[in-house]
C-alpha cells in the first residue's frame, strides 16, 4: 500500500475546545483536548474504520475532515493540498469531493422538504454537476442506485422507514460524485435486520464508484466487516492502527484487547470459552487527561513509566521484524500480543 499516494493524509491533527470562565471578560481556564495529535492516511477505494467509545474524539475527527471545524494545529491533505485552512471558492471546490453520511436518519433530513429536494439540494450549490433541466432525472437515478423506487421522488421523509431514510442520506452523499465519504455511525440507529441491507449497499456503491470511506462507528463487528484498515481511538489519540486482521487477530494495545473482549458475542459457545477483560472505571475527562499514556488509569499493565512518558504510535521495536500481524503501530510501552477474539 505504501507505493500508492494517499488520497487523504492527516498529520498531527489537534483540536482543542477552549473552556472559558466569566461573562464580560472571558478568560480561558483550560481546554477540552478532543483530538490530540492524530495521524493517518486514506487510500483510494479503501475503507478506514475508526472505533472508540463516546468522548474519544472520533466524531470531532469527522467534523475536521469535513472542514466543519478548524483544527488547532496539524494538517489534512487532500491529494497533497492542505484543505484545513481553505476558505471561499477553494473550499467549495474541495467539499464537492468529500461528502458525509450522518448517524441519525431521523434528524439529518429536513422534514419539510421532499426527497427530490433533499437529494437535489447539493446541485443548487454545485450547479456544474447537473444542469438545471437535468436534475430531476439525476435524482431519480440516485434513488435507483440506492435501491429506492424513483417514483418516491415527491414523498416526504416521514413516509419512509429508518433504513429507507438512511438510503436517502446516502443518495444525497453520492449526488456530487465525491471521492471520499465520511460516515459517522451510519447504521447504529437502524434495526439489526435493516443494518445488513445498508452495509451491503455501501459496499456495493464503493465498488461501483471507487469510493473511499472513513467509517466511524462504535460497533466493532460491523467495523471489521466493512473496513480494510482500522484505527482505535482513546481520549483523543489513536491507540493502535492496522489492517483489520492486524487489529482483530493480533491486537497489541491493552485498550484494544479490552474493547474487543467486551463485545457481547452472539454465540453462547464462544461466550463460555473466551476470556473477558473487564475494565474498571470510566473514561477520564478529556479536559483533564492523565499524564503520559492516557489509558494508564484503567490499564492493568501500567507502571511508573506510563505516567511520565507518552507512548508514541509506532511499530513496537520488538515486533518490527515479526512476519505475523503483530508488526503494526501501537501506542503502548508494553505492547504484547493477546488474542481475545478467537476461542
Amino acid at each position, binding site marked *: 500500500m505504501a507505493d500508492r499516494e494517499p488520497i487523504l493524509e492527516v498529520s498531527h491533527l489537534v483540536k482543542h475546545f477552549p473552556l472559558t470562565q466569566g461573562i464580560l471578560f472571558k478568560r480561558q481556564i483550560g481546554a477540552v483536548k478532543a483530538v490530540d495529535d492524530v495521524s493517518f492516511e486514506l487510500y483510494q477505494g479503501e475503507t478506514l474504520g475508526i472505533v472508540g467509545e463516546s468522548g474519544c474524539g472520533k466524531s470531532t475527527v469527522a467534523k475536521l475532515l469535513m472542514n466543519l471545524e478548524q483544527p488547532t494545529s496539524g494538517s489534512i491533505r487532500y491529494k497533497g493540498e492542505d484543505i484545513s485552512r481553505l476558505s471561499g471558492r477553494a473550499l467549495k471546490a474541495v467539499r464537492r469531493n468529500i461528502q458525509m453520511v450522518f448517524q441519525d436518519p431521523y434528524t439529518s433530513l429536513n422534514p419539510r422538504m421532499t426527497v427530490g429536494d433533499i437529494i437535489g439540494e447539493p446541485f443548487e450549490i454545485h450547479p456544474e454537476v447537473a444542469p438545471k433541466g437535468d436534475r430531476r432525472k439525476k435524482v431519480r437515478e440516485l434513488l435507483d442506485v440506492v435501491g429506492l423506487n424513483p417514483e418516491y421522488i415527491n414523498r416526504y421523509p416521514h413516509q419512509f422507514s429508518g433504513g429507507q431514510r438512511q438510503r436517502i442520506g446516502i443518495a444525497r452523499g453520492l449526488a456530487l460524485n465525491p471521492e471520499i465519504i465520511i460516515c459517522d455511525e451510519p447504521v447504529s440507529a437502524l434495526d439489526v435486520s435493516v443494518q445488513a*441491507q445498508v452495509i451491503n449497499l455501501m459496499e456495493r456503491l464503493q465498488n461501483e464508484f471507487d469510493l473511499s470511506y472513513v467509517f466511524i462507528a462504535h460497533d466493532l463487528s460491523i467495523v471489521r466487516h466493512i473496513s480494510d484498515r482500522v484505527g482505535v481511538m482513546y481520549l483523543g489519540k489513536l491507540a493502535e492502527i492496522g489492517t483489520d486482521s492486524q487489529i482483530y487477530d493480533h491486537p497489541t494495545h491493552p485498550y484494544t484487547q479490552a474493547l474487543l473482549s467486551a463485545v*457481547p458475542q452472539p454465540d453462547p*459457545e464462544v461466550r463460555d470459552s473466551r476470556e*473477558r477483560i*473487564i475494565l474498571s472505571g470510566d*473514561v477520564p475527562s478529556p479536559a483533564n487527561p492523565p499524564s503520559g499514556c492516557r489509558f494508564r488509569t484503567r490499564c492493568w499493565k501500567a507502571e511508573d513509566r506510563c505516567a511520565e512518558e507518552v507512548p508514541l504510535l509506532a511499530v513496537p521495536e520488538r515486533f518490527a521484524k515479526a512476519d505475523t500481524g503483530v508488526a503494526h503501530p501501537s501506542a503502548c510501552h508494553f505492547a504484547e500480543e493477546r488474542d481475545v*477474539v478467537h*476461542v
Partner: protein
Amino acid sequence: MSIEMTKAEVPGVPLLEVRDLHVEFHTRDGAAKAVNGVSYTVDAGETLAVLGESGSGKSVTAQTIMGILDMPPGRITGGEILFRGEDMLKMSEEQRQRIRGDKIAMIFQDALSALNPVLSVGFQLGEMFRVHRGASRREAKARAIELMDRVRIPAAKERVNDYPHQFSGGMRQRIMIAMALALEPDVIIADEPTTALDVTVQAQVMDLLAELQRDFQMGLILITHDLGVVADVADKIAVMYAGRIVENAPVHELYKRPAHPYTKGLLESIPRLDHKGKDLYAIQGMPPSLTAIPKGCAFNPRCPMAQDVCRTDIPPLAEVLENDGGPIGGRSSACHFWKETIHG
C-alpha cells in the same frame, strides 16, 4: 384472595406469567395492534430474554406488566398477567400499586431521562424506603448509601448528595439498578438496560446485573434487540415479531439451530468479530406497519421460505421436536415449516 397470600411461594405456579396478552393503540390510521397474544413465564432465579426489533411489541408487553402503559391511546384488549398465580389486571389500583415497585421493578434504558434532574440521587433512592417502607429521612439516606455500595459506586458516602448529571452514563445506570433493587423485588424487568452505554461499560453493568440477580434469586426479564447481550446472560429466549412470539428456546439451542426463518435471518445478518466474512446476509424488506399486519404469518413478505399457506393461515406456536420426533424441551416455533428450518 387477599394480597398477603401472594407473598408466599405457590408450588407449581410460575413467579410471573403473561397469558395471551393483547394490546392495541388507537391511531389515526386505525388500531395499531402492538401485542397480539403474547405468553411467557419467568421463574425465580431465571433470566428470560425478550428479543425483538423496534415495533415488535417487546417494550409494550413490559409496560403493560408494570402498569405504566399510557391508556389511552393504549388499550388492553385481552389476556392475563399472573403474579404468583393472581391476575394483576383484575386487581384494584391499590393492590396493583403494592406489587409494583415492591415485587416487580423496572430498569429503563435511558437513565438520564428516567432520573429526576433536580433531586439528588440519594433522595431518589431513599424515596423508595420512605414511600414503601415508611422509613425516616435519616434511615432512608443510610439505606441509599448501602445500595450505592452494593452496585459498586465508588465513594458512595460522599456522592449520595450528588445530582444525576454529575455521574457518568455507566454510574447512572448503576443507580437505576440500585433503585430497582431497593425493595428486593421478586421480578426485575430491564428494558434495554445497556443500549445507551459504551462497550466496556456495558460489560461492567451487565455483569453486575447478572451477579445481583443470582444473589437475590430474582426473575429477570431482559428486553433487548442485541443478540450479543442476550447470549451473554439469558437462560431462555423469546423472539418477537410484529406483536407475536415467533420462537421460544433455551439460549444455546436458539443460536445453534434456530427454528424460525426470522431468527435464522437475524443470526446470519450480524457480522462476526473473529473473521471478516463475505457479503452479509440481509433479510429483505422491513418490519410491517402495526396498523396493517400482513395476512397469515406476519413475516411472510420477507421470508425466503414462504408458501401459499403462509399467506393465508397464521402459524400457531407449535412445539419443536427432534428429527425422530423426540422432545427437545422448552422449544416452540410459530412457523408452518419449522421442521424444514431446524432440520434443514
